[in-house]
């Protein structure tokens, strides 16, 4: 691994952490847990398209661990891990089909992130009651995924790295 690769990877990891922190500091004031913009996915999308699948996985998992250890707790680790893993699985799969642009991949990633978190919430609460929130999350996830995807497409195309 060249020094350049290491530096590039460290830079993106730091950026992903900062974006997670920003979203942690400025939660959207809604009555539904899990509604968010998903800014961190900008970095994951960038890694997925520009550095490859393996880098995207490393980056995403490392980000989840670092963020949970620095300003999360034991529970937030599981929420965040389930969201990140399910969303990246879906994004990698969708990208491989070659039929979707960055925006489509981002939207699918956003709604599957929400789905992963709902599944963890169901396990934690031992109740399917949280499914009540999913329609709203599906809507907010789609909208957030479009926004992040459009911005991500520009970054993937323009950033020289």
């Amino acid at each position: 691994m060249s020094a350049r690769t290491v530096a590039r990877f460290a830079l993106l990891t730091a950026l992903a952490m900062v974006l997670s922190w920003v979203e942690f500091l400025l939660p959207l004031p809604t009555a539904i847990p899990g509604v968010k913009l998903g800014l961190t996915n900008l970095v994951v999308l960038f890694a997925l398209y520009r550095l490859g699948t393996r880098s995207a996985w490393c980056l995403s998992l490392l980000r989840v661990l670092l963020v949970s250890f620095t300003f999360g707790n034991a529970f937030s680790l599981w929420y965040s891990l389930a969201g990140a893993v399910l969303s990246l699985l879906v994004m990698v799969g969708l990208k491989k089909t070659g039929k979707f642009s960055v925006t489509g991949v981002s939207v699918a990633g956003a709604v599957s992130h929400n789905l992963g978190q709902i599944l963890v919430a169901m396990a934690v609460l031992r109740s399917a009651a949280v499914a009540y929130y999913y329609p709203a999350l599906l809507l907010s996830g789609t909208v957030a995924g479009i926004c992040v995807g459009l911005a991500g497409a520009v970054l993937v195309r323009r950033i020289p790295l």
Partner: protein
Amino acid sequence: MKHRYDLLLILLLLAAAGVLFFLLRPGSAGQYVLVTADGTEVGRYPLDEDRTVTIGEEDYNVLEIRDGAAAVTEANCGDHTCVRTGKIRRSGETIICLPHHLVVKIIGGGGETADAVSGGIS
């Protein structure tokens, strides 16, 4: 043209959200407030009697039933999402406190989902 598939996906997801909204829509005014913690029933109160209950000790949520509606008015959880949810009164409507593993759900009344008929624990 990749954007066609993107658009298709987005429309599909929005349609799915619409269908789910419809399926999970609240019914008419409910009769009981069912409180479960960690999947176990901890209380069941009629909606037509005003009362204030504190659920839990160290980790607490204050449940207030007034004028046929229930709300969590105070809690020491981190996010206060349960408090922000506000009042619920219709069958199927739910307040959730994730940090305290608490579910407050309205049951009884007409037009509820099968889930509410079975007592809300599923």
